[in-house]
């Protein structure tokens, strides 16, 4: 921000001061909608859910103070640990695969080829498909008997194919495949593609003169320059994966209630929270679940920020931050 007004402010103290005050008041007025929204829809509810997490509240009677009971109950409940396991399983497979897949797609699209716009559009379309529609489409593809997936697997000799959503072992991989389809070619890929196009040609050329092959150039020039963009999408990607809800909920409530089947194999953290809060109306317990999740995400993000120092190339980040 420019600060050219400072010397003249000293010269004409009183008038400038009131102008500065006027500017401040105007500024506050413009951001007022956000301040109100933050107070009403974010901060207030956060404090309220913190309070509720110490109460027993099922909406029929007023909340009763309950001490740490909800928290004690969380850690002894089998479904909680099941949901934690499912969520960690999903996130730890999906996030790296998704990063790798979007990087590969971005590298492919960064080549000088004909029809690049066409390919980019095809890669991108799944990411703007409404999740309800893609669930309907994929449940049909994953039909154990007449689905397209098992037909194609049969063509390459895998017969009989997995039961997918009918099997406790294959329901999570099925969800991972749907998620990859829906996001590998999406925004993450576009960000990486923009990063690739921003890598200066001269760096590659001089490395080539020094005798570096294309793999070495990728490893020691392209990847470090991409690392800030990758870090950003990794942090958001992990938070997003841990919040897995809509896909699992929609894919598993078609034939069984509550969501998360078969046999709790797709009971992710947020599905569990939803079931407690909006199926069993246990608002106190649900709030405690929400707070445990929030703290876990905070800790995880903090660890990631610490680890970032060892692999993210910050000069590039500083260069990009210019505007």
């Amino acid at each position, binding site marked *: *921000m420019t600060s050219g007004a400072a010397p003249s402010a000293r010269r004409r103290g009183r008038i400038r001061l009131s102008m500065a005050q006027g*500017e*401040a*008041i105007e*500024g*506050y007025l*413009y*951001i007022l*909608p*956000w*301040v*109100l*929204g*933050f107070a009403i*829809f*974010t901060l207030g*509810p956060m404090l309220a*859910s913190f309070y*509720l997490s110490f109460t027993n509240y099922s909406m029929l009677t007023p909340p009763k103070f309950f001490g740490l009971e909800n928290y004690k109950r969380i850690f002894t409940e089998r479904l909680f640990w099941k949901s934690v396991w499912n969520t960690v399983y999903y996130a730890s497979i999906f996030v790296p695969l998704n990063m790798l897949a979007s990087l590969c797609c971005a590298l*492919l699209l960064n080549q000088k*080829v004909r029809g690049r716009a066409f390919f980019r559009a*095809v*890669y*991108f*379309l799944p990411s*703007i498909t*409404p*999740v*309800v*529609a*893609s669930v*309907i*489409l994929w449940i*049909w*593809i994953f039909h154990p*008997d*007449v689905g*397209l997936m098992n*037909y194609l697997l049969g063509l390459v000799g895998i017969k009989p194919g997995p039961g997918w959503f009918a099997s406790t072992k294959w329901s999570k991989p099925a969800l991972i495949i749907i998620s990859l389809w829906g996001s590998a*070619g999406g925004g993450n890929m*576009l960000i990486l593609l923009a*990063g690739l196009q921003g890598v200066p040609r001269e760096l590659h050329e001089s490395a080539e003169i020094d005798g570096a092959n294309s793999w070495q150039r990728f490893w020691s020039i392209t990847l470090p320059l991409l690392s800030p*963009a990758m870090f950003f*999408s990794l942090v*958001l990607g992990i938070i997003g994966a*841990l*919040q897995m*809800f*809509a896909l699992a909920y*929609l894919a598993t*409530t*078609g034939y069984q209630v509550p969501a998360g089947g078969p046999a709790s194999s797709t009971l992710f953290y947020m599905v569990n*929270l939803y079931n407690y*809060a*909006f199926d069993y109306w246990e608002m106190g317990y649900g*709030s405690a679940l*929400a*707070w445990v999740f929030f703290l876990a995400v905070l800790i995880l993000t903090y660890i990631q920020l610490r680890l970032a120092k060892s692999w993210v190339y910050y000069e*590039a980040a500083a260069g990009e931050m210019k*505007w």
Partner: protein
Amino acid sequence: MVALKTEAKKGRGSGRGVMLMLGRWTLRFGLYLALCVVAVMFGLPFLWAVLTSLKTPAEIFIFPPKWIPSSFQWGNYVEIWRQAPFATFLWNSCQVTFLSIIGQLLSASLVAYGFARFRFPGRDALFLVVLSTMMLPYQITVIPTFLLYKWLGWLDTFKPLIVPAYFGGGAFAVFLFRQFFLTIPKEFDEAARMDGANSLSIFFRILVPLAVPVFTTMGIFSFLWNWNAIFYPLIFLNTTEKFTLALGLRYFQRTVTAGGKATEHLLMAAAMVMTMPCIALFLVMQRYFVRGIVMSGIKG
């Protein structure tokens, strides 16, 4: 292509050059093959859904699958409107989406204007709070907001889906607008101020016209979020007449499959109808999409 030609010219007449050219060709071929394989992986599910949506119920369960329907059943796309109140769902979605977009664009741009153009104590700290809410899992606030809307009597109305958009419009939108406003020279404002314009008319007469591309980008994102949203409608709406298209599609899925008859052709048709506006919007507005996403990633 240019690289190829020069390679060919250089290599003419020598054996090594021919080998090099062949190597280039295989590399090119491999590249196109990889591009096409990936394209098939992304595109095939769509193709399969469209083909299924045009089949007769008898053809759906044929195995091994029959790719092309013997006659295209365009009637399936008419039938779905008879089987569920899709016209109502569509109208509901249009209302919610339209009103939310207006709210989000208006309030996010004004808030961003405040952050970008005015100096006031605590501004940078507050903006940091804006950014950090991007990482906040929304589930932490959902239970109390549900109780709040219940208390206000807003459950099963569109208000919970629309009203919050008018209060700040979300961190991402504020961020996008602010970044853009910062790139517009402040001299533009000063000049207008000399002519006696107040800050609101500077905003509407100078910044808004310059920011039309950002409004377009943000409008597209906002459309997709609201059109595709499932979590909040699921929690805040319960009667069928109030369902948005996303909820309606799910309702349709649950009701038609309950009958036990083959209904996949209708399900696919309904899913495609809901997806079509998104695809159309993307194809027409590709440029703005890419720009917006890239802008959001620049943050590093």
